[in-house]
């Protein structure tokens, strides 16, 4: 299913989130179960299915990474369930170093400053990768789409790092 079509939005990485939200509410209203109270069993089932699709679509388009994955899938590059290992050594070395820094937080003299230092690194890298992803997807050709797929893979590592960092912060607060 083409989620962009469903929300009548142009298929691209840049999405007007306000417009997406408005379309989402409209569609949700249209397919609300109350509207189908007196409808046939078949129509009721279809409305339930459509409401689920709308939720999935909204969820996917709202988040930049899922949106980029959906856009690539529409262009024939499917990466959402891949099990292939990522092998960019220098990138992975850097990830390893960041993970090592995360592991040092617990025993650090000043964990707060280490956390904000790591957070700054993660945020800066994530921002520049997202910018690069937007530019790469905008080209819209098969070669650049493969480059975009690699940028998405890298971004996933940074989202994971962010998540790990949040877990550590929570542990420190408890």
């Amino acid at each position, binding site marked *: 299913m083409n989620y962009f079509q469903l929300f009548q939005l142009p298929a691209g990485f840049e999405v007007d989130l306000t417009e997406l939200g408005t379309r989402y509410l409209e569609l949700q209203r249209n397919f609300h179960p109350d509207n189908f109270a007196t409808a046939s069993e078949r129509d009721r089932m279809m409305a339930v299915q459509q409401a689920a699709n709308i939720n999935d679509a909204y969820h996917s388009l709202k988040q930049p990474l899922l949106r980029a994955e959906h856009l690539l899938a529409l262009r024939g590059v499917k990466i959402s*369930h*891949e*099990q292939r*290992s*990522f*092998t960019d*050594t220098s*990138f*992975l*070395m850097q*990830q*390893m170093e960041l*993970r090592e820094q995360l592991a040092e937080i617990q025993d650090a003299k000043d964990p707060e400053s280490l956390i904000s230092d790591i957070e700054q690194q993660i945020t800066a890298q994530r921002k520049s990768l997202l910018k690069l992803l937007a530019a790469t997807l905008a080209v819209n050709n098969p070669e650049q789409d493969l480059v975009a797929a690699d940028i*998405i*893979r*890298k971004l*996933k*590592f940074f*989202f*994971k*790092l962010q*998540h*790990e960092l949040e877990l550590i912060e929570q542990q420190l607060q408890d």
Partner: protein
Amino acid sequence: MAYSEKVIDHYENPRNVGAFAKDDPTVATGMVGAPACGDVMKLQIKVNDQGIIEDAKFKTYGCGSAIASSSLVTEWVKGKSLDEAAQIKNTDIAQELALPPVKIHCSILAEDAIKAAIADYKQRHGS
């Protein structure tokens, strides 16, 4: 989800954790990652003149199954030639550790890590 006893054993007592000196010419490194779960795995091998893997070390940031898979591989490759080590299949790892289907990708990661380390060695030594 319950881990098998073997996974728990490797997770709680990982074998061969650590790293060799980077500048040691007999050392080769394989780095791999799994974007879906953010796991990062580093596997190093120390190879002697006869092309036999004398020692191996790993460092993995990931779930218990990923740690256990890499720990197991470092045990398995010791004493093997590079060609023998290259024969290790992810299915062997998954079977030994009784990994459930959702964790098969961890064994794939470990297989790819040893393959990457072997490729790194061959590239450095021009064979």
